[in-house]
Every structure is written in structure tokens, then in C-alpha cells.
């Protein structure tokens, strides 16, 4: 995973130049250990940002989806309720069995119910057991960089080892727990 843009300590190239480059090429900046790497994203020629604001294209997509879902529902009702003989007399003979008009919704509902149980089970299975090293540390904490301590500055954010945390909580705060 690339390091996030750190706007505080290292100056970026000029904002105007950066925006123009993004527009033209669709590039992304990534910063790693003091140097600037330019990475080519999927060059679409458009802005790379994704915003949830309403756009004309999205309105059209929404309306098409609405129309097609209404049509699909009406078609399903026609197929399920109107007897075969009427449909055959109209000339529409090649339909699936009406059995599926009941079976598919039932399958769907059972899938949803099993999905609840399955999700719960998957959550329990992916919880680390008590003897796992993942409850203490992980790759990011092991490979974190030790920034130099600067006077009069807020110390950099880092993962503190669990031994130190324990000593601070349980050895120092004597009065807190004997009350």
C-alpha cells in the first residue's frame, strides 16, 4: 500500500501545475521516503475523483433502470398469473415452467436467511483466536519508521508496544484500581 500524501512536512509541486497534469494525463502523486513518484492511473482523460453528486448521465441511468425494472415486474406477473392456454392462444408458446414463478422467490428468500447465518459464522471464523500474534501487532506496526524527536513539536503518530502500554495502565495507576 502506498504511503498517503503528507501535506505537512514535504512541499508538493505547484498546485496549478499538479491540477493541469491530472486533467491532461490522469496521473496520481505518491510520496515515498522523500522523493516524488508519478504513477499512471487508468488514463481516461477525465477527472479521477468520484463524487456522489447528481449528474445528467446518472439521471438517465436511473430512469432506464426504473423503466426496465417495472417492465420486468409486469412481465413476471403476466407469466405467473395468466393461464398457459391464453398465452398460447396469443402465440407466445416458449415460456419456462410456471413452477419457477414460485420456486425462484422462495430460493431467494432462503438465500437471504442463510446469508444472515453465514455472515455471522464468517465473522466468528475471521476473528483472531486468543493466541494469535495479530491481537498484538501486525506488519504495519513492525515496519513503521521511527521519526526523529523534534523539540516543541507534537510527536509523530506511531504504534506503541504493548509492554509499554501495559506498564502505563497497570503499574503506574495504583490508586485507580485499589479504590
Amino acid at each position: 500500500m502506498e504511503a498517503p500524501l503528507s501535506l505537512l512536512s514535504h512541499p508538493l509541486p505547484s498546485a496549478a501545475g499538479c491540477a493541469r497534469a491530472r486533467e491532461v494525463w490522469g496521473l496520481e502523486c505518491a510520496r515515498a521516503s522523500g522523493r516524488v513518484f508519478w504513477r499512471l492511473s487508468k488514463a481516461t482523460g477525465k477527472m479521477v475523483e468520484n463524487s456522489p453528486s447528481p449528474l445528467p448521465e446518472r439521471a438517465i441511468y436511473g430512469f432506464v433502470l426504473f423503466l426496465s425494472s417495472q417492465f420486468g415486474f409486469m412481465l413476471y406477473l403476466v407469466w405467473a398469473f395468466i393461464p398457459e392456454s391464453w398465452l398460447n392462444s396469443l402465440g407466445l408458446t416458449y415460456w419456462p415452467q410456471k413452477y419457477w414463478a414460485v420456486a425462484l422467490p422462495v430460493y431467494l428468500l432462503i438465500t437471504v436467511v442463510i446469508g444472515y447465518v453465514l455472515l455471522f459464522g464468517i465473522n466468528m471464523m475471521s476473528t483472531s483466536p486468543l493466541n494469535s500474534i495479530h491481537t498484538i501487532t501486525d506488519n504495519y506496526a513492525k515496519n513503521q519508521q521511527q521519526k526523529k524527536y523534534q523539540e516543541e513539536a507534537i510527536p509523530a503518530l506511531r504504534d506503541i508496544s504493548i509492554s509499554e502500554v501495559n506498564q502505563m495502565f497497570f503499574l503506574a495507576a495504583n490508586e485507580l484500581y485499589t479504590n
Partner: protein
Amino acid sequence: MEDKMSFLDICGGRLALQRRYYSPSCREFCLSSPRLSLRLLTAVTCTVWLAAYGLFTLCENSMILSAAIFVTLLGLLGYLHFVKIDQETLLIIDSLGIQMTSSYASGKESTTFIEMGKVKDVIINEAIYMQKVIYYLCILLKDPVEPHGISQVVPVFQSAKPRLDCLIEVYRSCQEILAYQKATSTSP
């Protein structure tokens, strides 16, 4: 010197912690759970036998009743020998290591020993356990490759599962011994 205190486990059951100070460099902590309660035993036996009798009235096969008696007896013996842990002990000897003993209700004892050279630290860790977040004491083992790394986590008092107040007592005593050990090992 012996010391007995009463605590609760994470489900609210009673626990008894007995501390023995053999010397400044050797201590033992003994957590005892209450014995198998007669109420639970009667309840389980009645349920199993009533269910077997219900099946018998349906099937008219008397083998079900004998099978139920057999299953109950074997189940009870298996539970006492493999599942029910009465007492868990943690023995720390300064220069030697840490020993954990579990005594089962049938008298069986299972022991684990970790030598002091492998022990990095004894800490109280929080983790998610079955829809709860619990505190538990664990021993961190050193990584032979990396000096500041942790190779393994060994949880302690797994079946008794005491609450934080009990764990803090044990933790403080362990830290005293580990500090004593570091002081005596670094001094020439």
C-alpha cells in the same frame, strides 16, 4: 507466605486466587474454579433421560433406554477427564522459567513449561472472544531472528478466565519478578 483472594470470572462465576510467595524470585498463583455443581449434573441427566424416554414411547425399543444410561455415564466421565478444569496454576521462577499446570476434575494434570530465555514479557491483552471483549494474561515469547520481535503469544488461565482485577494482581507480581530478573541479570 500464602494469600487467598476471591474474584469473579467473565461470566460472573466465583474464582479463588491463592498466591504463594516462596522467595523474592519465585511465586505461584493458583486459580480454582468451583467444582462440578450437583444442580447442573442433575439437570443434564434428567434432560437426557426424559428425551430418551420420549423416544422410547415413540419407538417401543428398550435399547434406547440402555443407550441413554451408557451415554450419560460415558459423557460424565469424559467431561470430568477432558473438559472440566478445576485448578490452574502459574509458577514463575526467576532464573528458570514459567510453568503452567492445569488440573482436571478427574485428577489428570497437564503441564507446560517455558524457559526464561524465551520469555519476552508477561502482559494483559484485550481481544474479542465470542461476542465479548475480554482481558486475558499472556506470555510473549522472543523471536530468535529479530531482537525486538514477538514470535508467539501464549495465553494463560484459559479455562478460568478471570476478570481484570485478578489479572492486575497477577500481572504486578509477574512484573516484579521480571524486573528483579533483569536487574540481577544485568548486574555483574
